[in-house]
């Protein structure tokens, strides 16, 4: 029997993969040093905080990771700015390559719900599936909220200086920032470690990780299964050839798994801790 070597296509550019890598590193650093404060009454939180050096070391790690997040966001917006304003590329705000919500997504959602219930076929998604768009947009929104509230908590004296005394008696900026920062963090960590993981990495066909975001490459079978709309579109436009690449080497695949699987497990353990705290609190 002969093994059929499938054609591979490039799905993520090096820049996007690098940004995802930066976000993984900084996000885990932030969650592991920040979550103990939100779950301060539990022994695992104390253990985890001590593991990262306790006060004030864990706080320094938290701030360094925040700076890495800022750096990743900076790269992303430079990329957007360069493509839109300098190179005058189109399709960033509208069309199949855009990450913004469009009428098409409404039909995709309806089609997907039909598929869930077994009434219809899986919709032919284009480059970005609606939940991927949602994840991207919530990452943008979440980063903005976390960065702003985090900076307020980092420099409380400087930020309160902006606020007049009479308003400060009603709107207590650092306290509001702390509450938003804490619960937005629980929202973000909970979302990434459950919804994002289960939608992309832990699907039965992808288990344990979707390597595309690390190697950048996707096989033809996966491409057709996941995003038939995009595949057909590129085929019709005769652009498909431009995306053809050599399959990832075994070494790259191995390194990807070596890096991604422990991180994935760490995230699942974290969400387990957080969920158990919810149960303890409910009881």
């Amino acid at each position, binding site marked *: 029997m002969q093994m059929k070597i499938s054609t591979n296509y490039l799905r993520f550019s090096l820049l996007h993969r690098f940004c995802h890598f930066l976000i993984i590193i900084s996000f885990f650093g932030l969650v592991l040093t920040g979550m103990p404060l939100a779950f301060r009454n539990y022994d695992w939180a104390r253990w985890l905080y001590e593991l990262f050096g306790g006060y004030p070391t864990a706080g320094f790690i938290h701030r360094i990771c925040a700076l890495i997040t800022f750096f990743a966001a900076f790269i992303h917006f430079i990329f957007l700015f360069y493509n839109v304003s300098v190179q005058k590329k189109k399709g960033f705000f509208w069309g199949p390559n855009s990450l913004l919500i469009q009428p098409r997504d409404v039909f995709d959602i309806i089609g997907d719900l039909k598929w869930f219930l077994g009434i219809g076929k899986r919709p032919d998604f284009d480059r970005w599936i609606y939940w991927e768009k949602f994840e991207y947009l919530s990452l943008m929104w979440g980063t903005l909220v976390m960065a702003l509230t985090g900076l307020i908590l980092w420099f409380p*004296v400087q930020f309160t200086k902006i606020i007049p005394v009479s308003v400060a008696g009603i709107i207590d900026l650092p306290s509001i920032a*702390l509450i938003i920062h804490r619960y937005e963090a629980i929202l973000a960590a909970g979302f990434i470690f459950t919804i994002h993981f289960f939608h992309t990495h832990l699907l039965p066909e992808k288990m344990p990780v979707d390597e595309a975001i690390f190697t950048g490459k996707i096989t033809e079978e996966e491409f057709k299964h996941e995003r038939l709309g995009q595949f057909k579109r590129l085929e019709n436009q005769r652009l498909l050839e431009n995306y053809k690449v050599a399959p990832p080497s075994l070494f790259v695949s191995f390194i990807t798994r070596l890096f991604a699987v422990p991180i994935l497990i760490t995230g699942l353990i974290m969400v387990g801790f957080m969920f158990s705290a919810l149960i303890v609190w409910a009881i």
Partner: protein
Amino acid sequence: MVYKLKESLVLRVLSGLGDFKWFAHFIISVVVVSLSPAVLTAGDNGPCIECHTKPDKLKTAEKAKIDPVTGEIRVVSMLIDEGTFKASAHGGEDFFCTDCHQDLEGADLSEGHKPNLKPVDCITFCHDDPAEDYLQSSHVKLMKENNRDVPTCKDCHAGLTYHYTPMGEKSPRDVPRGTDPVHRRLTIESCGTCHQEYLSSYRNNAHGQVASLGYTTIDIPVCFDCHGKHKILNSEDPESKVGKERILETCGNCHANANASFVKHIEHPQIKNIKYYKKLLTALKNARSNPEDLKNLIKSPQTILCLVFVAYMGILAFTFSSFGVHSLLCWFATVRDEYKRKGHADEDQH
């Protein structure tokens, strides 16, 4: 004297060894002076430590004591942990046992000192200032007005130590320093035994959440850093450390350049206090008959914090329930398709 005899005996043996006579004299006199149990003089802890660190040298290692105020009977150890004593606020170079146990000065130790000493008077000669401050504090004033038992020095200071006697009781003898992290952590719990609501709201704050993880170095403010130690006054009182006139200075101790807006910070957020929500609801219910109540509550920064908290609880619940269901459905649909595909593949093979 017994020691004189011993000295000459040993001296005779040593002098036989040759020219080390002067050296032997020196060694022996040092040994004899340090062992001599004659009379206790001020300025020397040696004779006390000599016996009070070894249970077999004491007539009684533990004593039952009746508290003159509460009438409680406690077992108190007579043993001293030298390391703990040295590390305590009273463990400095120029502190001596007889400074506090004054009735022991000049006592004859050849038969052991008298068994029952006078209670130590902390206030008269040394700590008169904190005692006076304390008498002016809200603790004393308010509680006297309300006919309640005023906390005594011991209510706060005893039992705050980390030196345990053999019976497992805490000994009030080792006075810890205000900079000691363990002591600082324990003070939070001491204040919290009475001020429970303030303790739990403190734990929701930026300062308290770090303290809750067990970090209470001087970088992390505990109750007394903001409220003071002995002269704790109501925050309405202008002289209070958290009152209008002094709060800039208090916050400024850690936050350089603290400004007037910064010090409006809510250190005790009520976001998890069900009583505050009940108060809000009753104010809403009586909005027509008593609009002032509701106005005041809306103007309070606490209300905004509570609304933000409730909003986030809603966002969390909605996001996880909707996307949780979505993920599960997506998962099951994928498995179902896979199963169908495999089924067809099997049919094709047949």
